[in-house]
């Protein structure tokens, strides 16, 4: 069993198992050549998470560089707007670089240093994980190569420039659909080729074991802080009734869900990108619409054709525009512990407006999916309940898209 950093409570939920499975999902479906690299990584990870100095470094960087802890903001006007449960936002949008992604990038770059790796690679879609990785590489003086679909490098030129400014080399990927899925393939190919000196920082709770559990352990600080902050705000032993997060690969969601998994009274809701509607082919609602399969090293759910080819996802938000999902979410879906719903492009854009006009918080389009779901959820809540929503990122990166639609 993977050891976690929880000292506070005994978790009865104890996934993944030794083989990296969350129930039926997970594993490491990778070329033989990566097996030693994953074993080396897992052993470094296991050692690190038992090492106080590792966590001290991690927390010092998050506090002094990233700006944690992030606030838990009481959204008085949104609350008033619905007139039901109290709404809080966990403000990952205030992290350095503008999204939760950097929590994981910091954790992984620290591991890479411990392992003596000098060259960092990563994939990116919208560029948020690429920017986070380029950032930590600049801060640590490490070589940084970012794979990005050629189409995304054009759509997200701003983030390409940000990465370049920080010294990262952005490699446009021209294969396949020229988006995140292909950038990931290409990053894996680089890793396969340069496995000796290269550390691959995966940007979500996906990939072969131990990546999903690493992403979780480096993001669970979101949920751990939330739990403590809510008690500070609302009183001892108070738990939220609902915790909401958008789900692309699933890293921000698992980060806020995980510390509540054993708290049975807390309803956890993951919001996927419905795209043009999950009844269409233009969707990224992996759990709602997909079937089990293997992509990028783990067995999880997947959008795929009848013959098992991976489908292109569609979402207005680049960060959710991915046909796979982390295996732990597949497990939490199958066991029913987390409820997954889908919100369409159009509804997400309404979510942007809602939060911007009532709270002065312009969310990332990814986050906006979760916000929009409040329109469905809130009427079912009562005044003495509490809803916490993970505000995973800020919307600056999306203003171009948002302006086009609004």
């Amino acid at each position, binding site marked *: 069993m993977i050891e976690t950093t929880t000292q506070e409570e005994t978790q009865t939920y104890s996934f993944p198992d030794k083989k990296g499975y969350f129930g039926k999902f997970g594993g490491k*479906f990778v*070329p*033989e*050549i990566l097996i*030693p690299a994953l074993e080396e990584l897992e052993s470094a990870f296991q050692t690190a998470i038992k090492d106080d100095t590792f966590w001290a470094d991690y927390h010092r960087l998050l506090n002094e560089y990233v700006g944690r802890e992030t606030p838990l903001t009481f959204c008085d006007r949104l609350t008033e707007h619905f007139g039901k449960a109290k709404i809080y936002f966990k403000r990952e949008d205030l992290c350095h670089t503008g999204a939760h992604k950097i929590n994981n990038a910091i954790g992984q770059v620290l591991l890479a240093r411990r392992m003596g790796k000098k060259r960092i690679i990563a994939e990116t879609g919208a560029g948020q994980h690429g920017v986070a990785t380029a950032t930590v590489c600049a801060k640590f003086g490490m070589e940084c190569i970012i794979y990005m679909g050629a189409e995304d490098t054009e759509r997200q030129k701003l983030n390409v420039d940000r990465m370049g400014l920080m010294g990262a080399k952005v490699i446009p990927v021209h294969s396949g659909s020229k988006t995140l899925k292909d950038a*990931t393939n290409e990053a894996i190919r680089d890793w*396969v080729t340069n496995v000796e000196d290269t550390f691959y920082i995966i940007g979500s709770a996906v990939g072969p074991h131990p990546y999903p559990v690493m992403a979780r352990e480096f993001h669970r600080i979101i949920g751990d802080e939330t739990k403590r902050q809510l008690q500070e705000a609302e009183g001892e032993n108070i738990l939220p009734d609902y915790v909401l997060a958008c789900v692309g690969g699933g890293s921000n969601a698992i980060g806020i869900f995980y510390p509540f998994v054993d708290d049975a009274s807390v309803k956890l809701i993951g919001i996927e990108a419905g795209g043009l509607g999950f009844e269409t082919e233009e969707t990224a609602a992996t759990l709602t619409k997909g079937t089990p399969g*293997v992509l990028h090293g783990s067995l999880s759910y*997947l959008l795929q054709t009848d*013959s098992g080819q991976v489908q292109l996802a569609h979402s207005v938000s680049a960060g959710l525009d991915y046909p796979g999902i982390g295996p732990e979410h597949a497990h939490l879906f199958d066991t029913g512990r987390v409820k997954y719903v889908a919100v369409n492009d159009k509804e997400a854009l309404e979510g942007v407006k809602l939060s911007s006009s009532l709270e002065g918080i312009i969310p990332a389009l990814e986050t906006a999916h979760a916000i929009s779901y409040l329109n469905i959820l809130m009427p079912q809540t009562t005044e003495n309940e509490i809803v916490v929503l993970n505000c995973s990122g800020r919307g600056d990166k999306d203003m171009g898209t948002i302006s086009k639609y609004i």
Partner: protein
Amino acid sequence: MSRISNVFKNKAEDEKVMTLFLTAGYPEQEATVDLILGFEKNGADIIELGMPFSDPLADGPTIQYSSNVAIENGTTLSSIFEMVKEVRKSSQIPLVLMGYINPILKYGMEAFFSDAAEAGVDGFILPDVPVEEADQVDAMCKKYDLDLIYLVAPNTTEERMKLIDEKSRGFIYCVSVTGVTGARDGDEVAKSVEKFIDRVNSNIHKNPVLVGFGIKNYEDATRISEKMDGFVVGSALITNIRENYPNAGWKENVVSFVKTLKYGNKADVPAS
């Protein structure tokens, strides 16, 4: 004894087993059977038939390209089984299906291996299914009397080589340099692999070993497979097809390229 094992049993002491990788359905579905039969006539001992996948993360650009074309051509696992059946009408050349696990899962494990056996497939190479994840696949292969071929890489530990030797049936595919499939420079390859090949030979005893990745011509093949049982050519063959297709006589040109891979320009090329 399987068709694959027969190849190794029957080959001359210093003869190298030539295995050719061809993406099924590339450059057109109709061509695959002809190509296989032509390859056999010109020296191929084993055929690895690639099952195209949308996200071939262990493959370089050449094979990615051929996979995309094959998918666009409508190639599916079912259509591949039809190709295999067609080959079996006139040939007993060992056929190894190589590909990623996802389409197989989607097809259904039991159905896939059962249909494969029925069609006349001999074995499988599944690059994203390492030993750790292979229990079910292994059970299926055993059930339907099919070979399961693993890969070893330069960074595979000796302990693990022994494990893989134990688990593998048919042969072992030795990836000569770290990296994805693709046409690397043979010289570079040769230098970097010597030690690795020695390690492979001291740890792998049960199975024959074929060496692959980066072989472009007869000279590469000869040098690299010197201490091995044979070699695999993939990307170089796809590249050759890509260069010739769809010009008139493309198949003949490809087939004669295959002949040079096995025999070089030696005088003793048998009449085809």
